[in-house]
């Protein structure tokens, strides 16, 4: 696979102008994105995701390090023609309509005339902003999901090879998330490379081919997400309706009672064997009814935290 | 929305300045302003580009102030301050000089302020005939200073755009000073340069009146000195009592009627 974006040893430290206190930044961040993949950039809030992205799209200058897209260095104005960028929580000129806004951003890439008009139509169709009665409507009246999609539209209007999205799914309702996710997957289908950052693991897990995990300004791991996370299954929560409260002692042999509501009991069982035995006992001896058996996954967030903890221990 | 609110506020301020003065008893405040204005507010540079508009506003206010005070028969002593302010803000506001000076002089009874205003106008608007004319006119009307008035009228008639009629004030000043002969000579000049019959007729009329006055005065002096009447009018010229006897353009002659004791004209 060919490499499309390469970041080499990026460092950036924010200095407070008066007190010389060094704020969070990033240290020695290197990674590369391959053509045609969806690359997730994962990390908790304040880890340096947005900083890295800002450097990549040229909003900030790195203290040191280099960025290339298709081997074009960042300080070349050509560079920006190959990338499309959607900032976090984008905000556009409130009083313009979607078409007007896109025609201005498109014009900045040298598109004009009929070509630009066709392209705007195409892009709006792609992000699904045509089905609404949107013609001439001011961006002020758009919902957050619509603004997010308009943001993607302005990022892809010049058909860039790589689309860089900063937290495209945050702050949206479930429907909005799905719509934006679909747009991202469509982009992949077209052969575009998508680079996006997120602090929500599920989003990344759902659509990314590869991820880089960043914490505290440093890249911890790069690779395929499933390989990085070790899943542990086997715990269950069993909900029972008991006939008599005397049977509590029997149940306690198999697992912990986590909650009692009258005759209804929640039991936490930590392996599959105990669960089978518990259910067998209750059915055979007629203690009561089984209401629900709920398998407990160890949460992805926990795994995520585990990764960071390992990192911290290594450092220590 | 924001814009509309601004528009409403602005227009409210605008109208409150010019129309709603009674409601806010604005005029009493304006009297205070009138005392205050000349010192601080009338450097036109303080107001950016709005000195002219501000001058217009004070102009309106001053007219209202004038009318109101006049009605109440109140003192108008600050009137000259107001017009001074206006002309500081807009030094080329001609009406503020001429009309302002008239009000200051007639109703404010402030002759000095009136004169100052007009002189200021002459400095700022050197090509305007109205300032010297009004100065002359007020000198004639109020001071009875015909010499000064004549000088101002002479300046006025040299300015571009000065109406012909202003010329007539100059011989009249001579008439008032008792120098009938010079006045008469001026009327002859006016007669010679007149463009239409009516003007000519008027000028001729004036020549006759001035000449009669001149000759009558000369005869009175002659009789007083010599104790007898002159043999004819030319004796007056010879003995130096009269400066000259004009040849009237219509060919008629002057003669002295002893019975009526007056100079008459016969065709």
């Amino acid at each position: 696979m060919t490499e499309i974006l390469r970041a080499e040893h990026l460092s950036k430290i924010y200095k407070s102008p008066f007190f010389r206190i060094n704020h969070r930044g990033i240290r020695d961040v290197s990674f590369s994105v391959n053509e045609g993949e969806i690359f997730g950039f994962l990390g908790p809030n304040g880890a340096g995701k947005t900083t890295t992205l800002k450097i990549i799209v040229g909003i900030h200058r790195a203290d040191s390090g280099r960025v290339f897209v298709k081997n074009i260095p960042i300080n070349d104005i050509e560079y920006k023609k190959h990338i499309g960028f959607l900032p976090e929580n984008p905000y556009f000129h409130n009083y313009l309509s979607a078409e007007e806004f896109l025609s201005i951003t498109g014009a900045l890439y040298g598109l004009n005339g009929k070509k630009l008009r066709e392209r705007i139509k195409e892009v709006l169709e792609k992000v699904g902003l045509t089905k609404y009665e949107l013609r001439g409507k001011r961006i002020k009246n758009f919902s957050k999901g619509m603004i997010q999609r308009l943001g993607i539209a302005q990022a892809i209007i010049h058909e860039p090879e790589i689309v860089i999205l900063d937290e495209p799914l945050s702050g949206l309702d479930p429907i909005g998330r799905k719509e934006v996710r679909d747009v991202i997957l469509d982009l992949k289908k077209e052969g575009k490379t998508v680079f996006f950052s997120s602090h929500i693991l599920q989003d990344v897990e759902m659509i990314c081919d590869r991820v880089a995990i960043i914490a505290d300004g440093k890249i911890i791991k790069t690779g395929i997400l499933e390989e990085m996370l070790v899943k542990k299954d086997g715990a269950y929560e069993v909900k029972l309706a008991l006939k008599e409260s005397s049977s509590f002692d029997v149940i306690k042999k198999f697992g912990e009672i986590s909650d009692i509501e009258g005759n209804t009991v929640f039991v936490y069982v930590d392996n599959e064997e105990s669960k089978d035995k518990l259910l067998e006992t209750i059915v055979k001896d007629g203690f009561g009814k089984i209401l629900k058996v709920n398998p407990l996954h160890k949460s992805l967030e926990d795994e995520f935290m585990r990764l960071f903890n390992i990192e911290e221990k290594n450092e220590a | 929305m924001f814009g509309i609110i601004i528009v409403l506020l602005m227009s409210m301020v605008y109208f409150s300045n010019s129309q709603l003065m009674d409601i806010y008893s604005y005029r009493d405040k304006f009297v205070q302003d009138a005392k205050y204005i000349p010192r601080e507010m009338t450097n036109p540079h303080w107001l950016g580009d709005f000195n002219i508009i501000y001058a217009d506003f004070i102009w309106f206010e001053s007219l209202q102030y004038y009318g109101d005070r006049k009605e109440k028969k109140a003192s108008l002593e600050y009137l000259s301050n107001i017009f001074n302010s206006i002309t500081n803000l807009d030094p080329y506001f001609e009406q503020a000089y001429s009309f302002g000076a008239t009000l200051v002089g007639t109703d404010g009874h402030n002759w000095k302020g009136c004169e100052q205003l007009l002189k200021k106008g002459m400095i700022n608007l050197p090509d305007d005939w109205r300032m010297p004319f009004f100065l002359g006119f007020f000198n004639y009307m109020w001071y009875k200073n015909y010499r000064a008035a004549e000088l101002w009228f002479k300046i006025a008639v040299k300015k571009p755009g000065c109406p012909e009629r202003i010329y007539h004030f100059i011989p009249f000043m001579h008439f008032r000073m008792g120098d009938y002969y010079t006045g008469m000579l001026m009327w002859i000049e006016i007669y010679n340069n007149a463009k239409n019959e009516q003007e000519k007729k008027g000028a001729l009329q004036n020549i006759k009146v001035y000449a009669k006055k001149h000759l009558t005065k000369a005869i009175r002096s002659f009789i007083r000195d010599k104790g007898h009447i002159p043999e004819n009018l030319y004796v007056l010229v010879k003995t130096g009592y009269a400066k000259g006897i004009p040849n009237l353009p219509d060919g008629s002659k002057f003669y002295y009627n002893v019975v009526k004791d007056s100079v008459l004209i016969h065709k």
Partner: protein
Amino acid sequence: MRRSYYIAKAVFLESLKNYTLVSMIVFGVVVLVASLFLNNAMLGEYGKLVVDLELTLPILIGLIIIIFNGTRLVYDEIEKKTIYIYASKPIKRWEFMLGKFLGLTAVFLVVTTIFAILGFLFLMLLHIPVKGQYVLSLFFSIMELMILLSVTMFFSSFSATPILTGVFAFVIYFAGHLAPDIYQYSLMAKNQFVRVLVRIIYYILPNLSYYNITKEVTHNISISINQIYYVISYALLYIVLMMVFSILIFEKKEF
């Protein structure tokens, strides 16, 4: 330059669509119409008020636009992070600043043109002769507003809030008109240090009093060609300097 044009277009479009332009023009028309009723009180100088308003209103409106829009021109982009959109596009920062400047200048131009046309129509209705010098005065007003806008952009490139910038702009406007008095003071001051200091202030401040020729124009005082050349070149120099400074600061800025 092409890209500056598109930024300018965005600024213009936005001020058109957020009713800034329309409300300002409505305000102006209201004032002009009101002036018709007061016109008779001008006695001998009939129509003076209409002419005065016509020549002064564009400046008043320009000032309001500068205070409310000009101070937020760059600030809003940074505050609301629209600048991220532009920063990731192939546009240089100086092109962005220039575009912003030109966009608002276009707004001034439109406002002034509309007032010129309206005012001339009013004058024709009142049978007052229209003088070519009115156009010169309006042209000077636009230059004055451009100078003030460039100063505003310079302040907004480093000041913390738009309100502060607005105060700066306001002070500079009036101080700029006081320039002749400041010069006089520098001649009169007894202390040598004060004299030099005041003279420096005089040279730093934009001399906006050059651009107030309303009274000369309304009273037919002629303006020499030399003065016009001088005033135009002064405006250009001042605007270019201010824009260069603000671009230099803006280039260094991190959002």
